[in-house]
């Protein structure tokens, strides 16, 4: 029995020390990792949506929790007024998993500025064609108040032929954002305008 005690002791000690070290390092690097993630993952999408260099935009970030999900939200508050938002959502049902989209919103005109793909795992050459400018252009100028749908489901958007799953995931992501805005637009604007940072977004990997 003493042997087993020794086994347990040695392995758990190694485990404890490992976990402690990692937790410490992780805590020390957390902020940096999140910033890096924003800069490299969301930055390109953001800068294309708002036509500005990404580092300027990343500071205005908040994480909004609704319906059991967390949505990273970036906002522009030129001249003190929060008028434009970019909300990220994971569109479900893609062929290779979630399609993460970033939707630009113009609150004043209540329209969509556009859509950018943050990440996806679609098949190159097939589902990956959702990245094409010509496909995404359909989003620009859509009204913010109604859910969108593919033509096959009675809506206005043309799906990419052969990539229905991928197109559907984009629509799903868009509708999540539209719903979020419908229910919580004021809270978000208030949060952003107040400059009050909510609890930091939990950075997954």
């Amino acid at each position, binding site marked *: 029995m003493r042997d087993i005690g020794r086994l347990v002791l040695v392995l758990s000690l190694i485990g404890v020390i490992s*976990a402690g070290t*990692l937790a410490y390092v992780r805590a020390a690097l957390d902020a940096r990792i999140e910033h890096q993630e924003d800069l490299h993952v969301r930055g390109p999408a953001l800068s294309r949506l708002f036509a500005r260099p990404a580092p300027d935009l990343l500071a205005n970030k908040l994480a909004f929790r609704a319906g059991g999900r967390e949505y990273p939200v970036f906002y522009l508050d030129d001249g003190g007024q929060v008028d434009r938002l970019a909300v990220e959502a994971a569109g479900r049902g893609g*062929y*290779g998993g979630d399609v993460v989209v970033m939707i630009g919103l113009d609150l004043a005109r209540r329209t969509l500025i556009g859509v950018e793909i943050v990440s996806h795992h679609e098949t190159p050459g097939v589902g990956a064609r959702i990245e094409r400018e010509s496909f995404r252009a359909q989003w620009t100028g859509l009204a913010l108040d109604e859910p969108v749908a593919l033509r096959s489901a009675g809506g206005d958007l043309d799906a990419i032929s052969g*990539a229905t799953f991928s197109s559907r995931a984009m629509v799903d992501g868009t509708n999540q954002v539209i719903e979020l805005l419908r229910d919580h637009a004021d809270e978000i604007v208030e949060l952003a305008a107040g400059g009050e940072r909510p609890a930091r977004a939990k950075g997954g990997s």
Partner: protein
Amino acid sequence: MDLLLLVIGAIFVNNVLLAQYLGNCPFCGVSKKLDTAAGMGLAVIFVAVLASVLTWVAHYFVLVPLDLEYLQTLVFVLLIAALVQLVEIFLKKKSQALYRSLGIYLPLITTNCAVLGIALLNIKHELDFATMLIYATSSAAGFALAIVLFAGVRERLLLSPVPPAMRGTAIALVTAGVMSLAFLGFAGMVE
């Protein structure tokens, strides 16, 4: 329909060995004979499914609630190592027949990236429990398929006049490349 696509995708299109490059060391080492390759394939299916279940549970019931996802690699690999060793000890004592056909391949699996890879991919794709089971099984089956096919090819290769410098692992890798090219063709089956 979705499930069928998932299965075909996992076995053929995204074959663990030939498209995702996972588990190549035993692929080269153990594929010299057909029966060893088959044993290895079965052992991988067995362990990959078991490990997937264990790591999936650990992930969603321990790591996520405690916000410790960054320990994923560490916890998974520890669990898999312990699991494999346990199964081996158990099989050796309880069923000599099963141990002979499967058990001796188990140690190889501790360091088989295919098993850890499948466990990590389950989480990365955010699969639910049932889908995860199917995905893990078919991915591992893809491994088994590839290694068995490859062993067949290698047995024939022994008879072929290969330039001296290319004999052994070198020609095996080139052959694997050709097989991988063939598997690339499956990409058209889905979508």
